[in-house]
């Protein structure tokens, strides 16, 4: 495993920690302030700090150090959880998120002096008023505190000792420097040095390895053999150390054993006195020592009364099925998904071949069919992740919006556990962010407006995700002012997007906000950007094979619904025949299919036909014309109409000869194998090995309706 790979794990872990901290702080804000919650937040930040140190991200480490110190006081109950404190912690978390991002991208760390000052102030319990002084103190030396802290950490570490070993060897071998006078150290390990898996002999050897020479062993305290307790320390040693070795190096070795070994430095010093444990003759020394220490706060060591309780505390946890995970490189997973896609096709091909040989009803084929489906579902589920990972970023966006717009928004999340494909999740973040910013900036009114309209001062934003018939629906609903259609229309006319006398339905006007270059904000705000947002949103969603629809009621609010595929790799489609072509209509667009009755289709002008669907007229688009296939139908009534939903042009009815099947297909890009073709989204291989083109319904309908005369050609 390379260090890059380990770092990649670290950043994944950071994301997890940030999400955990965010969840914990959200719980704190809602009043859940128990030890577990606070501990989880602490652990999250602590874990980032640990990794940051290990990988040398000093800015991140310095920042997390301050953050962690504050959290540690909260955890230890020194600081009470209060609303202002949670607020500081939340903002500190936002900056931490930026710090992590900057460490990952190797970019300039975010400005954090202000927050560090606030955290320091919060820790000392100072109000905002007296925060000024710590500000100066911290801000002048933002990077210093941690360096200082780190080096003081190291004082007690093995590190400096080892440095001196290395230094010693380095110095001694190549060119002996002017020898400093050698010095003496007396070492007296007591009984405790042998407890807890410690072994004084190893430490003595280490002193020897430093270059020490044992010059005396103090044996006067050794009792007669029948009085000797092997668990006691009776011996003392005196070592002569070379002058090149630092006294601290020896101290560091014995830092390990603490008070259980006395050291005395210098030739004049006398060897520390032997210290025999009085009350603990043959009893195991470690236990006696521990029992004494346990009186502070620890549970008794021997499995006495408290131990079973301990057992029980740990058992339910141990009994729980452990969530075990394994990290896999995404490309490997994608290869698997690709192969599974091919397997699905191969299976279908074989089924078709067997059917043509008249042996399709074999049991083995049914078994293979079932297995293939299982494998496909399992493979898909590997890539599936809960949408909560995207939703978890939303609180931060709302906080930032609250501070920049002054609008308070309450967030409600529904269906966070809904799972969908990782790629979809990753690419969902941006459009979702845009929609949320848009909802707060344009949708939700200011507090005064809301109160005047008889609404609660705090706006509500609902994010809901659910599975519905093989698709995922994500709904972003605000309780704001709704779309002001008059203004939208006026704006669109002003921008030259529509004619001033155009007759447009409510839906059509709503859809205008997705037009490129459209923006209704009277002033361009930094929040919603420059009117490219909604256009980009629709484009992003479309690239994911999804659609976006709007429902809005003036004064009540707006709801955007994103309909997305569960996966990008395999789609459902309707296989249709048009002339001599076999085509696939992606099921995502299909609303219904019908065989028109006489009178359902009415002419409009010379070359336009409209279908009457329960009183609503939608344009009929003969697919053979659009793709240039041979005309096979005498008239529209002889074919089948597939009503499709499109982004740009509303509904349309595709006229095809007949529908032969509905099945899953793996999209193969035409661009990579041939070239981009207008109206065609890609190609796939059918069960019989034939290549079928997949219709780009949006492009096809938009193109045909934009140039109706082309159809006549």
């Amino acid at each position, binding site marked *: *495993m390379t260090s890059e*790979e*380990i*770092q990649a*794990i*670290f950043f*994944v*872990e950071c994301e997890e920690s940030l999400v955990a901290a965010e969840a914990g702080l959200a719980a704190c804000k809602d009043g859940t302030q128990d030890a577990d919650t606070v501990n*989880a937040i*602490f*652990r999250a930040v*602590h*874990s980032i*700090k*640990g*990794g940051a*140190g*290990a*990988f*040398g991200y000093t800015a991140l480490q310095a920042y997390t150090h301050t953050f962690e110190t504050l959290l540690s006081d909260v955890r230890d109950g020194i600081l009470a959880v209060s609303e202002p404190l949670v607020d500081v912690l939340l903002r500190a978390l936002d900056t931490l998120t930026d710090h992590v991002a900057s460490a990952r991208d190797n970019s300039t760390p975010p400005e954090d002096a202000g927050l560090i000052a606030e955290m320091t102030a919060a820790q000392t319990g100072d109000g905002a008023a007296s925060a000024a002084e710590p500000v100066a103190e911290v801000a002048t030396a933002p990077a210093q505190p941690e360096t200082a802290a780190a080096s*003081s*950490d*190291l004082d*007690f*570490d*093995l*590190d400096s000792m*080892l440095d001196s*070993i290395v230094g010693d060897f380095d110095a001694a071998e190549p060119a002996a420097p002017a020898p400093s006078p050698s010095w003496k150290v007396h070492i007296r390990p007591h009984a405790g040095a042998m*407890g*807890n*898996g*410690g*072994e004084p002999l*190893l*430490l003595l050897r*280490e002193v020897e390895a430093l270059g020490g020479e044992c010059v005396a062993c103090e044996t006067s305290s050794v009792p007669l053999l029948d009085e000797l307790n092997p668990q006691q320390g009776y011996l003392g040693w005196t070592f002569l150390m070379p002058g090149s070795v630092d006294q601290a190096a020896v101290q560091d*070795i014995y830092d*390990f*054993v*603490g008070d259980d070994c006395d050291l005395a430095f210098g030739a004049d010093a006398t060897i520390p006195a032997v210290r025999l444990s009085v009350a603990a003759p043959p009893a195991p020394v*470690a236990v006696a020592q*521990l029992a004494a*220490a*346990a009186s*502070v706060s*620890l*549970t*008794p*060591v*021997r*499995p006495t009364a408290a*131990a079973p309780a*301990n057992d029980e505390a*740990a058992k339910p*946890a*141990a009994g729980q099925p*452990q969530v075990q995970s394994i*990290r896999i490189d995404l490309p490997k997973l994608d290869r698997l998904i690709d192969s599974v896609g091919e397997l699905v096709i191969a299976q279908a091909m074989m089924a078709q071949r067997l059917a043509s040989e008249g042996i399709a009803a074999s049991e083995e084929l049914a078994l293979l069919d079932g297995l293939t489906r299982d494998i496909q579902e399992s493979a898909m589920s590997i890539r599936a992740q809960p949408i909560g990972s995207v939703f978890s970023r939303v609180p931060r966006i709302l906080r930032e919006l609250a501070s920049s717009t002054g609008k308070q928004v309450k967030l409600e999340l529904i269906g966070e556990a809904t799972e969908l494909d990782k790629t979809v999740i990753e690419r969902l973040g941006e459009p979702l962010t845009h929609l949320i910013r848009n909802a707060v900036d344009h949708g939700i009114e200011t507090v005064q407006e809301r109160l005047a309209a008889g609404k609660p001062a705090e706006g509500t934003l609902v994010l809901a995700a659910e599975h519905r018939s093989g698709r995922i629906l994500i709904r972003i609903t605000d309780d704001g002012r709704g779309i002001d259609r008059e203004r939208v229309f006026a704006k669109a006319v002003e921008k030259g997007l529509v004619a001033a006398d155009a007759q447009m339905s409510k839906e059509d006007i709503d859809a205008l906000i997705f037009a490129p270059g459209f923006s209704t904000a009277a002033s361009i705000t930094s929040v919603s950007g420059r009117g490219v947002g909604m256009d980009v949103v629709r484009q992003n969603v479309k690239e994911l094979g999804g659609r976006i629809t709007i429902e809005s009621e003036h004064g009540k609010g707006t709801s955007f619904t994103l309909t997305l595929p569960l996966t990008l790799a395999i789609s459902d489609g309707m296989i249709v025949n048009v002339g001599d072509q076999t085509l696939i209509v992606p099921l995502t667009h299909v609303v219904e299919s019908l065989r028109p009755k006489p009178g359902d289709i009415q002419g409009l002008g010379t070359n336009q036909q409209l279908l009457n669907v329960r009183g609503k007229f939608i344009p009929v688009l003969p697919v053979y014309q659009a793709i240039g296939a041979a005309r096979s139908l005498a008239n529209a009534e002889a074919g089948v109409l597939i009503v499709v939903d499109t982004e740009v042009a509303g509904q349309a009815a595709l006229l095809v000869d007949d529908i032969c099947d509905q099945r899953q297909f793996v999209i193969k890009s035409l661009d990579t194998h041939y070239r981009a073709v207008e109206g065609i989204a890609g190609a796939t291989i059918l069960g019989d090995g034939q290549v079928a083109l997949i219709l780009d319904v949006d492009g096809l309908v938009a193109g045909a309706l934009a140039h109706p005369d082309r159809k006549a050609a």
Partner: protein
Amino acid sequence: MNKTTRILTVDDSASMRALLLHALTSSGFEVAQADDGVAALEWLALNEVDVVITDINMPRLDGFGLIERLRAGDRHQDRPILVLTTESSDEKKQRARNAGATGWIVKPFDPEKLATAVRRVTH
């Protein structure tokens, strides 16, 4: 010829586990890993090790709890246990020692120093 020193590392952070695994195996140790104290206890119930290296802050059962329980049991009572921690206050060290830790390593660690710390309690 000594047999290979077998180490159990206990840390809830995947990147820290990866670092430890890399550092310790490069130094020629045999390494097993556990996600937290509970997982470590489960593993130790069935396996033998020469050294345990444990983090302090972990979910379910933290490092102090793990050490206490190992010292309270019979099988690993005398096993060297090193505490790997970012917290280096004397108070924390005292607490670790009281719990029964043999020694500690402060994060961030250098692979060679880590190996030396392990050798300090084995061989």
